[in-house]
């Protein structure tokens, strides 16, 4: 619970008119900056007969061209930088699942903004100086580790830069260092829950009470599982490398949507197929324009994340608006026998069956020109009875749950524990072995 407002969180509560005015000022400045410094952006504006002075209101942003992940690949490594390299004091990169990584840069001012945003994010989850944070996001080129670190340090928390992996050491830290909060990917925390339980420790004995999880989509059902099994409050944090890293959005104590830091990010929802801007409340693809980034500004970046803007005021009092939990990435959608299916639907279905632990994997293959899907689910102690009939009944319940949510009969294969690779980072939920090559997402 936030007991008082942190001074740096003031912009979260800006009066609406003031916020929009600030956004417009910053949007104009960013558009001018990009026009002057980013060749790709200028050429696109010129193609459309546009110039920075055409942006006179926030709605005018809809006239501007989109930017895509492919633009980052095409201009690898520094083609989209709007600052000279000597002003770029930090580089980060995200591993693309195919091809070259995406490279982003930060000036000193950018780093200052970034750590302030992450501070605001932690504050929204009720954390404060005096909390002991175990940062199990990966440190290195990934924005998660260092991003969380500097925000946490700025807030004045006691930060343990443990990075990802080495579960035994993670558990030792949870036990011995008085850790009150942890941040990592939700799938890695699920793994830690199992390891804690397997080592005979109860979460009651541990002091951790808050988790800030992100870097991959996760369902309400997964949150329910985490909170039930560990007793902590689990908050969703949103970010992406191309925009800044963690700190684009955060759930507050209401846990009802992600507040986007609108003083730094202008958001739109567009139809993923036509690019048309959709009204608040409609689900579509989130498009973000950075308002203050210097080294790596982004205009109308297509995030490929599916969500909607929640226009209602949040009970926490913040005026910066929320988006609904990211259900999936647009490209996560699988089309099986003509039906649209998202991994998050499979996840929610599996978790609705009592006793299921969320270690699952979706295998996609092509046989005889038709898309085939199979879901692997690990069998745990809790799920395993002594009778074949019990296991077969469990299998049937899992298949029914999936059919109920997706409308598809999908075969479920029960596999031995630990046969699905664990992740320290983002979980590979889908293995796609169809003809366009194997891509794991």
């Amino acid at each position, binding site marked *: 619970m936030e007991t008082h407002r942190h001074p740096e969180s003031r912009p979260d509560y800006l009066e609406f008119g003031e916020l929009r005015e600030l956004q417009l000022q910053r949007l104009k400045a960013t558009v001018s900056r990009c026009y002057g410094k980013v060749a790709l952006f200028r050429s696109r504006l010129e193609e459309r007969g546009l110039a920075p002075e055409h942006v006179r209101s926030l709605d005018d942003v809809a006239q501007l061209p989109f930017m895509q992940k492919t633009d980052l690949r095409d201009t690898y490594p520094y083609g989209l930088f709007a600052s000279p390299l000597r002003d770029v004091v930090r580089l980060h990169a995200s591993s693309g699942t195919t091809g070259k990584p995406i490279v982003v840069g930060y000036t000193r001012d950018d780093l200052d903004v970034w750590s302030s945003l992450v501070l605001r994010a932690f504050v929204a989850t009720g954390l404060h100086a005096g909390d002991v944070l175990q940062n199990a996001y990966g440190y290195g080129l990934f924005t998660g580790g260092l991003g969380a670190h500097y925000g946490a340090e700025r807030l004045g928390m006691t930060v343990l830069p443990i990075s990802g992996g080495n579960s035994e050491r993670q558990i030792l830290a949870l036990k011995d260092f008085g850790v009150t909060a942890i941040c990592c990917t939700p799938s890695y925390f699920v793994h830690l829950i199992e390891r804690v339980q397997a080592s005979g420790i109860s979460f009651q004995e541990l002091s951790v009470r808050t988790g800030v999880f992100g870097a991959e989509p996760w369902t309400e059902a997964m949150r329910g599982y985490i909170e039930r099994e560990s007793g902590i409050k689990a908050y969703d944090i949103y970010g992406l490398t191309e925009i800044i890293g963690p700190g684009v959005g955060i759930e507050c104590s209401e846990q009802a949507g992600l507040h986007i830091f609108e003083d730094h990010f202008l958001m739109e929802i567009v139809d993923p197929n036509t690019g048309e801007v959709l009204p608040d409340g409609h689900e579509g693809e989130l498009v973000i324009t950075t308002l203050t980034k210097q080294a790596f500004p982004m205009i109308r970046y297509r995030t490929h994340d599916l969500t909607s803007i929640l226009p209602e005021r949040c009970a926490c009092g913040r005026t910066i608006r929320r988006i609904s939990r990211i259900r999936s990435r647009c490209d996560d959608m699988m089309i099986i026998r003509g039906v649209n299916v998202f991994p998050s639907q499979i996840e929610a279905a599996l978790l609705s069956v009592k006793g299921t632990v969320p270690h699952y994997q979706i295998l996609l293959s092509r046989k005889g020109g038709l898309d085939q899907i199979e879901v692997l689910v690990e*069998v*745990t*102690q809790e799920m*395993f*009875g*002594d*009778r*074949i009939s019990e*296991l*077969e009944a469990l*299998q049937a319940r899992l298949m029914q749950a999936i059919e109920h949510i997706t409308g598809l009969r999908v075969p479920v*294969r*029960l*596999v*031995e*524990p*630990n*046969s699905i690779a664990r992740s320290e980072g983002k979980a590979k939920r889908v293995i796609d072995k169809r003809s366009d090559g194997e891509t794991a997402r």
Partner: protein
Amino acid sequence: MIIKQLSVFLENRPGHLGRVCEVLARDGINIETMTLADSREFGILRLIVREWNQAKVTLEAAGFTVNTTDVMAIEVADEPGGLERILKAVENGGLSVEYMYAFACKRQANALIVIRFDDVERARAVLQKAGVGMLSAVEFYG
């Protein structure tokens, strides 16, 4: 009268069964008897071992999912009709048998079978009344 049986979940893939045996052998655990129940997609390996607790810990450490079940070890006269008499008692007592399997070796003139009953307490009462020989864990392991 209750013997502890271990059940291990196995995928239907080559080598998995062998690995269970390897893990137990490495730990010096001797398997008294075993049976493999299979469905199309997976199997359940049921084992009786003396050091069942140690075996469970060892198998779990090796990554297997293990359960323990209470079963009964019943003496059956090793002659035609021996089993029939037992099953008559079971039927008359209205007991429900989940599964059963026989031991490879005998005790004196008797064969041994392992039975899992739905209701183990009722089974014990019924079989006792019918004069069927049941082995306690102590007698069983000798």
